[in-house]
């Protein structure tokens, strides 16, 4: 074996070693605990954080879909649209929504009947997006713009003073700015 071949072999081995070390370092130090597929799935899910899928939030459900191959038809707020997008992303056939998880409902927001609220703060603790303001023994209220309509505040309320109402008509009927896509100068 000539020295040239030997040299080349050594060079390749050194290169493999060096690149392997770099990759190994990158894998251990720069990795995120969220895989790219999980992120993509999570981006499709509607982020209501309602838990109707059986998981405590959209991200855990996304992880379960990817890691444990849980069925992707368990998201009632997303409905057919989300199921379709997930099927396309995952390369599987679309399924009908699993009726055990709930049914598709029009967009709603929580509304606190203020006369009845006793200020127990239980709903505040259960709101996944911090959309309820209030403190102990003070009246609470829902920030309608931030409410995802997940209904998680309903069960803990001891006086049943929270109701779900249809999303404000103004929120659905967009302003002309959104429609015409006009940029308003600042």
């Amino acid at each position, binding site marked *: 074996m000539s020295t040239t071949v030997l040299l080349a072999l050594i060079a390749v081995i050194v290169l493999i070693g060096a690149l392997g070390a770099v990759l190994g370092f990158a894998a251990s130090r720069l990795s995120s605990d969220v895989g790219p597929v999980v992120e993509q799935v999570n981006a499709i899910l509607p982020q209501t954080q309602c838990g109707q899928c059986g998981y405590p*939030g959209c991200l855990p459900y996304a992880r379960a879909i990817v890691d444990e191959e849980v069925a992707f038809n368990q998201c009632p707020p997303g409905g057919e649209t989300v199921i379709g997008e997930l099927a396309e992303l995952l390369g599987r056939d679309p399924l009908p929504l699993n009726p055990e998880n709930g049914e598709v409902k029009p967009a709603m927001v929580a509304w606190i009947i203020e006369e009845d609220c006793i200020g127990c703060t239980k709903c505040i603790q259960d709101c996944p997006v911090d959309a309820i303001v209030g403190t102990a023994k003070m009246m609470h209220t829902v920030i309608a713009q931030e409410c995802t309509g997940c209904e998680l505040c309903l069960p803990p309320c001891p006086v049943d003073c929270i109701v779900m109402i249809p999303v404000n008509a103004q929120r659905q009927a967009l302003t*002309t700015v959104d429609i015409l896509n*006009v*940029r308003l*100068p600042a």
Partner: protein
Amino acid sequence: MSIDAPQDIGQRFWRFHGGLSLRHWKQMSLQHGLEQAPLPAQLIVPIDQQIGTPAELTVSVGDTVLGGQALTRRTEAHHVNVHAPSSGRITAIEDRPVIHPRLDCQRCVVIDTDGEDHQTTLPAWDHWPEYNHEALRERLAEAGLAGLGGALFPTHLKLDRSTEQPTRLLIINGAECEPYIAADESLMRWRPEQVLLGAQILSRILDAEQCVIAIEDQMGEVENHLRQTLKALQIDNLAIIKVPTIYPEGGERQLIRVLTGDEVPAGGLPQDLGVVVQNVGTAAASYQAVVDGQPLISRVVSVTGRGVNHPVNLEARIGTPVWFLIEQAGGYTEQAARLVMGGPLMGISLPDDDRPVTKASNCLLTMIDTDIQPVAEEMPCIRCGKCSEVCPAALLPQQLLAQIRGNQLEEARALHLDACIECGCCDYVCPSQIPLTQTYRQAKHDLALSDLAQQQADRARDRHEFKEQRLAEQKARRRQRLESRREQPDNSKSDDIKAAIARAREKRQAAADQNCDATESQD
């Protein structure tokens, strides 16, 4: 290719893509002049009469108002006021049927007029050149000025001097290209001084290098009137340019293209090119707002078409019901078959005439059966390509249609659906009678809705993640506190207490020992 010296404007014209040559039909209403419409018994004033969220309402039911009194308060920079068009009492603030491309009802202030028509005005600024441009801009927003060409873009936003580009050209848009509509033409014919002086005011606010009035080459009469008035008023820094009549030349982007050869970038504004376009009606209203202190409480509406007996241009108060104006035009003829707000191409078909005119209503068009293309069944697209030939935005209408019908809205967005100006040229030429513009309008709306949903989802995710992080931090802090307490000997209690605890412990121990002894001894 761009112009070098300002005096080049009007020397040559550029061509925009597509467009249609249409018969004008404007003489129909113009032969009767510009008349003042009487005051109706009830005025219905929509609160939302501008692009962007409307200003905050300040009146309530039962209030008496004067004509010209502001019903709103401006709280944001883009707001323009809405005013009571005449004096009277507010009898309701509720959702009423309105003229709107998508919505059937909107919140309106209903005013029962008292017939006295008492007016209040802002201070009249006869010597307006003494005021600085910011004060003049503020005045226009206070007086409720929004693009009267129909888009209702807040006028003062277009007059911002602080943009990166200094304004090299102000175009007063008199190229009212859609058939039948003669609101702007009648203003230029019968109130040329208001238009020209208004143009001077707008030009001064912008500090524009050059100001031109663009009219169509078929408007010979208008040109004479304008030139005479220019001479009488001794204005020499304003040029009148006749542009070739091609629909939709009156579109902002198309007019800029024709006059300067420049294209306004997709998603951009004319200001990016240093060009500002203002409608003729807006110029006249600016004059009234500044010099007379008169807020925008009326506008010129063409009531025309073969479906009314006496087509006419009327200066009507904002909020006047459509049926009232039709009556002023002699009422419907027997053949009247359809009522449209706007022109035959871009207009909104009205299901009934009990709706108020707004700042955007330039024309009420009544058509008879023979005017309307027989409603034929939609046929499949044969890919003839006529739609892309006439599209003034140079889009591919048949591709857009295919993507939208296939529910591929993102693909349609990639084909620049946003750039569609909804001019209706493609509908006009389509041999298969496909409702193209309506499809695009709906798709734009759906896209905006899905964008909104996405924004809300992003926000919800961020807030959820923030909450989880906060809870995790709280938990970690609590555990840390517990651990540190367990590790460190407790120094917080005083020696007396410690001694007492030790004594108590000893006593307990002793008692336990005794008990043990006792049980043992019993055994």
